[in-house]
Each structure stands twice: as C-alpha cells, then as structure tokens.
C-alpha cells in the first residue's frame, strides 16, 4: 500500500475494538456484552482522535458511553430476570449468519483493497476543528440541525408514551 502506515496506537485500538466487538456478539451474559460494548465505543472514540475528529470523539464518549450505554444497562436490569443465567442467546441460524458475515467482510475488504479511484488529498493537519464544525453547523447545516432537535423531542415523547404504564 502506497500510503504511510499507521502507528502502533491504531493497531492497539483497533485490536481492542474488534476483540470487544466480537465479545459483544458472542458472550452469553448480556450484561457482560454491554460492558464490552462500552469498551468498544471507547476504542472507536480513540480512532476518531486519530482521525483528527476531537469533537466527535468527545460526543462519542458523552452520548454513546454516557447516554446510550447507560440506557442499555438500565433496560437490561429492568427486563432481565434472565441476565445472569446461562441461557442460550443465539438462535438456530448462527452458522448461516456467520457465513453471511464472513462473506460480507471478505467482499468489502476486497472492494476496499482494490479501489484506487479515490482522489487522495493530502491530509492537512486540521486546526480549529471544533470551531469550523460549529460554524458549519450554524450556517450550512442549520436546517438539519434544527430538524434533529425536533426528532429528539419526538423520540422523547414517544419513549414516554410507550413506556408509560397504562391506567386501568
């Protein structure tokens, strides 16, 4: 490959991320899966920092790890009389899905490895990344920014309505 190779930090991060992702899909205890999911999300945040996306890494830690993971753990604790038992967590087509995922991974890797049509711009060191991110959010991407707030409000109300106990 013609491009400069990545440092050891990338290898460590990606190794831990892939390992914990595999744990997420293969462990039987669903609570351990959630903890490994948190580890995997941390590693992805580190990958973002390697890619000069500091604000995105912070948002990943805040929203994914601080929000979604806690929400998932809450749901596990609320629903699981099954959390600690060693019940089977996979359904009967595990082998077929493993094959499908393997084929998908091979195809994608082959595609990535054989594609050279991308224009390689020299990655300049992104200074003032967060500043320009905020500026473009407030100018160019104003409308989606506002729409997504409405989406969040709708999700909030929808979750409350769904999870509320019905009065009998």
């Amino acid at each position: 490959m013609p491009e400069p190779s990545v440092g050891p930090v990338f290898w460590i991060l990606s190794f831990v991320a892939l390992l914990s992702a595999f744990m997420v899909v293969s462990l039987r205890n669903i609570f351990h899966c959630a903890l490994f999911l948190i580890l995997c999300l941390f590693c992805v945040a580190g990958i973002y920092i390697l890619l000069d996306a500091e604000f995105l890494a912070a948002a990943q830690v805040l929203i994914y790890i601080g929000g979604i993971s806690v929400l998932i753990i809450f749901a596990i604790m609320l629903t699981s009389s099954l959390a600690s038992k060693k019940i089977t967590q996979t359904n009967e087509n595990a082998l077929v899905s493993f094959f499908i995922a393997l084929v998908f991974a091979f195809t994608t890797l082959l595609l990535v490895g054989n594609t050279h049509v991308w224009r390689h711009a020299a990655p300049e060191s992104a200074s003032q990344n967060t500043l320009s991110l905020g500026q473009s959010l407030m100018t160019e991407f104003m409308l989606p920014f506002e729409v997504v707030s409405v989406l969040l409000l709708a999700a909030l109300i929808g979750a409350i309505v769904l999870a509320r106990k019905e009065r009998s």
Partner: protein
Amino acid sequence: MYYYLALAAVLFSIGLFGVLTRRNTIGILMSLELMFNAANINFVTFNKYVVTDGLAGQIFAMFIIVVAAAEATVGLAIVLLVYRNWQGIDTDRVSIMKW
C-alpha cells in the same frame, strides 16, 4: 486510510453477525450500535482523506450519533413494553406480527 476502512468493514461484519444471531432484543440493539460505529468511522475517514474541504463527513457522523440516541431511546421503550406484555424479550417469542 485503507486500514481504517478495513477496520470499519470488519466491525460492521461483526455487528451484522450479532444482529442476525442474537435472540435477545437488547443484544440486537447493541449489535446495531456497532454497525452505526462502523459507518461513522467510514464517514470520518473519507472526510479526512478523500473529501477534505469542509467537514460534511464529521457533521453527518454527528447526526448519526444523535439519531442513534433517539433510536436507542424508542427501541428500549419498546423493549420494556414487550417485556411487560410477553414476560421476555426474545425475538422468537414476539411473533404476533407474523402472518
């Protein structure tokens, strides 16, 4: 760049495997989060190496994070509802919409 794309591809495949094999609904949701993360890595990678003018990739990734948060909220509310009605959150137990 290819390393990042390869990492995202493998991460997506692991998430795909999880979605296809999990019986627990929360497990499916967690695998979905893995797939979202793989897509986000791709967005940020392309924003750094291919389309370097502007930050559209990072902004799109941020919107994906927000939408994933909303999706997780509603999804887990549905999970709670299913648990209350069926006393379990396995997907093969909830087959009322099958025909």
